[in-house]
């Protein structure tokens, strides 16, 4: 499968994502500059982590107006799988492709550590190979990952089962003390109504090889590969 990894000025997890997809998962992964006219025929799009436009104004606020975002929006509207990781999640929120917003972390600290996530929804292209309730260990690295949704939005997310990942204890139980950044309802990741656009603060691309401490992130990308294989056109029967 062919992944497009979008590169904004200030992205810094673009190469990590490309490496994870190509070397660790054996997929094609092309870096696509934010001023590119198209997504190069990609089957899936990754908006990577980093500090697009220096996080000036608000995280992701300026990147959402990058030319490539028009293509990403069209790709998403056509049902193509899109994943925003960390800053990529912030860009999706600012672009209105996912609901809610980000605040500074509850304790105002930039947090860089491994956390545990509970998979809350497995009917997205990025979680279909995971088991419901499965606990994934992967790193976070952000200062503004304190997800906010107003009560009405939160109710919609819950009713439509659009909360995809929650910060949890290593055994998968939920408790506010494991809610590392103070996010509303311990939300670490969500999806859109159509379920093809997923955003999460943790970094699955940094958890794809045992050498870096965890391989739990692989399931996110393996899910995308499986989802694409499932909807790939079947060879014509003559």
């Amino acid at each position, binding site marked *: 499968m062919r992944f497009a990894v979008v590169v904004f000025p200030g992205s810094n997890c673009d190469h990590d994502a490309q490496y994870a997809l190509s070397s660790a998962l054996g997929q094609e992964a092309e870096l696509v500059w934010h001023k590119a006219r198209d997504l190069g025929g990609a089957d899936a799009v990754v908006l990577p982590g980093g500090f697009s436009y220096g996080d000036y*104004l*608000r995280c992701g*606020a*300026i990147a959402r*107006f990058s030319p490539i975002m028009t293509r990403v929006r069209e790709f998403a509207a056509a049902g193509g799988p899109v994943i925003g990781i960390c800053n990529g999640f912030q860009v999706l*929120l*600012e672009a209105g492709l996912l*609901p*809610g*917003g*980000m*605040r*500074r*972390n*509850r*304790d*105002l600290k930039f947090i860089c550590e491994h956390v545990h996530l509970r998979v809350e929804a497995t009917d997205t292209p990025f979680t279909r190979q995971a088991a419901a309730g499965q606990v994934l260990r992967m790193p976070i690295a952000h200062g503004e990952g*304190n997800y*906010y949704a*107003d009560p009405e939005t939160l109710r919609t997310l819950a009713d439509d089962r659009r909360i995809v990942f929650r910060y949890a204890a290593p055994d998968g139980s939920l408790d506010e003390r494991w809610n590392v950044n103070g996010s509303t309802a311990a939300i670490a990741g969500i999806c859109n109504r159509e379920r093809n656009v997923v955003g999460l603060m943790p970094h699955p691309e940094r958890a794809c090889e045992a050498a870096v401490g965890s391989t739990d992130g692989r399931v996110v990308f393996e899910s995308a590969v499986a989802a694409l294989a499932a909807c790939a056109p079947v060879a014509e029967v003559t």
Partner: protein
Amino acid sequence: MKAKVYVALKPSILDPQGKTITGALHALGYDAVREVRQGKYFELDIDAASVDQARSLAREMADRLLSNPVIESYRVEVG
């Protein structure tokens, strides 16, 4: 024409920076301070034919870019 745009987190949203500043002011002895809310301030120099036009442009810019309506509110002053 000069327009000033003040952006701050909505009152319903916890402002951890404001809270920390409140604590620092209390440590300096300013016990009279009940709460601090921190925000952003923009000065726009706008080429506009009238105050109304400048105001409506500043509002449009605040809606589209300068603020995030999900978590922030803003106020515009012109002139």
